[in-house]
């Protein structure tokens, strides 16, 4: 091969080229908020570790700010398809007994959960 270059990490990473939002390093507060949104509890030591790791990954991801993306449409699917639909016909159902037998807790044909506090969050 005529020209060798290292894989990945050798590009210029001057802060000037980064998007303003991506330039902000993720904080412990951010991680705490995200953990809350994802319903995960973090011990203080975990919070520390995860914050460092997520920051490293996001720092790496911030290199995307170097690309000129103006006019580029987001690619949400690898192969663009449209109008995939099915006929409005009833199909096979699951047996309630089987489903509830593998549920953590059930009662009267329903899934039982501890008290729900308030509206959807």
């Amino acid at each position, binding site marked *: 091969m005529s020209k060798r270059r290292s894989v990945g990490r050798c590009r210029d990473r001057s802060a000037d080229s980064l998007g303003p939002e991506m330039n902000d390093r993720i904080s412990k507060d951010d991680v705490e908020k995200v953990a809350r*949104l994802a*319903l995960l509890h973090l011990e203080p030591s975990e919070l520390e570790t995860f914050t460092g790791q997520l920051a490293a990954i996001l720092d790496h991801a911030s290199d995307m700010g170097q690309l000129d993306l103006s006019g580029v449409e987001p690619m*949400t*699917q690898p192969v*663009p*398809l*449209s*109008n*995939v*639909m*099915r*006929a*409005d*016909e*009833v*199909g*096979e*159902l*699951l047996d*309630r007994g089987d*489903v*509830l037998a593998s549920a953590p807790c059930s*009662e*009267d*044909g*329903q*899934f*039982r*959960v*501890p*008290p*729900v*506090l*308030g*509206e*959807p*969050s």
Partner: protein
Amino acid sequence: MSDFDESEWETVIGLEVHAELATRTKLFSSAPNEFGGEPNTNIDPVTLGLPGALPVLNEQAVELAIRVGLALHCTVQRSIFARKNYFYPDQAKNYQISQFDLPINIDGWIELPDGKRIGIERAHLEEDTGKSTHIGGGGRIHEADYSLVDYNRCGVPLLEIVGRPDLRNGDDAKAYVSELRAILVAVGASDGKMEEGSMRVDCNVSVRRRGETEFGTRCEVKNINSLRSLGRAINYEAARHVALIEAGEKVEQQTRHWDESEGRTHKLRSKEEADDYRYFPEPDLVELDPSAEWIERVRSELPSLPAQRRHDLVDRTGATPAQAGLIVERGLDALCIAAVDLGADGSRVVTHAEHNLADPRAVDLTPENLAKLTEMETGGDLSATQAKQVIAEMVETGASPVDIAKAHGFEAMDTDALATTVDEVIAANPDEWQRYCDGDGKLTGFFVGQVMKATKGQADGKAVSALLNARKS
């Protein structure tokens, strides 16, 4: 009626209506669109959000969404589904598949019976949640010992119709919901039953001083289960806002819960506890881009819609807008117009439809029979009272007015016989007659009633009045 000075304050209302679409199966799976029966019987891997399950869009739900969109004068456009992420046990996947950036229907309007146009921002497809029952604590969510979850309703197709904040009072809001319901029913998209939850109304209310152009801070009111509640909730909430502002306080942006028995709203949560739904395009579904052919086919198959039908009825029968609203709601407009086409008197037809045809079976009347009935009335063969009795039996049995009248022996009394009866009644009530002759107009009704009684309702009221009047002088 509001509890604040409406000359000073203006209420601004925007409604979000969720209508369950009348499909056989769910929006993204082939489980039946039925609930309310045995819990957790209409479930499949998609409904339960089982690992590995994938959604596939129900074509009929799209067809119904397009029908509603066109009926609301919306633009039907390319749309994509998105995931709305939030944790709640009713929501099996802990995300709801909805439409966010690109909804299927945008920018339409509804015409109210009085001619006002209310804007529609969007009408998009999304899936319904399951239902929780809270056990213990009197069924109250906050005091329950535990809850039970039924996923039969989870995944049922909904159309969320988001109205613009163009409404200014509770009556218009009620008219808007009635009209929307009529449209949903007319196009066969939904049964529109608010009390049963197949049509659910969330109401955004704010107030501002008249003349102001900026909107005030709004609150979203949930749990409105009837038109009556809608009007009450709006009035309560608007008054609450006015009171807060007049007391020098600020309205906080909140989601509130309407309590029908207490007649007031309660705070559920403030919007500062920011919802972060992390919407993103649903990668398990592809874009929905209905072809022009599809849209035009649906448009060509749309039935005549309530607003158009009201206009037609007014034009053809001379009905008032209020009468037209009622008659179209009863589905009797086509009958009325057909009867008029057969030569019936428009005013009599409309009067019957308004006053004598509340029975849902009235839609089965034939225009020929209705026209015949009015002809018998105008020809003097039936009195108004008799006509009322005949039309009731027509609805009941479907028989012709001629046969019914004959069976009852209803025939126009000849003038001589009627005059004799009038004279007998006058003779039997000399004191009343004197007062009548002295000008006590209230006694007209008394004498007409007496004559009616004596003739078992066969007499024509107008003829009786004429005879009484003639004898007075």
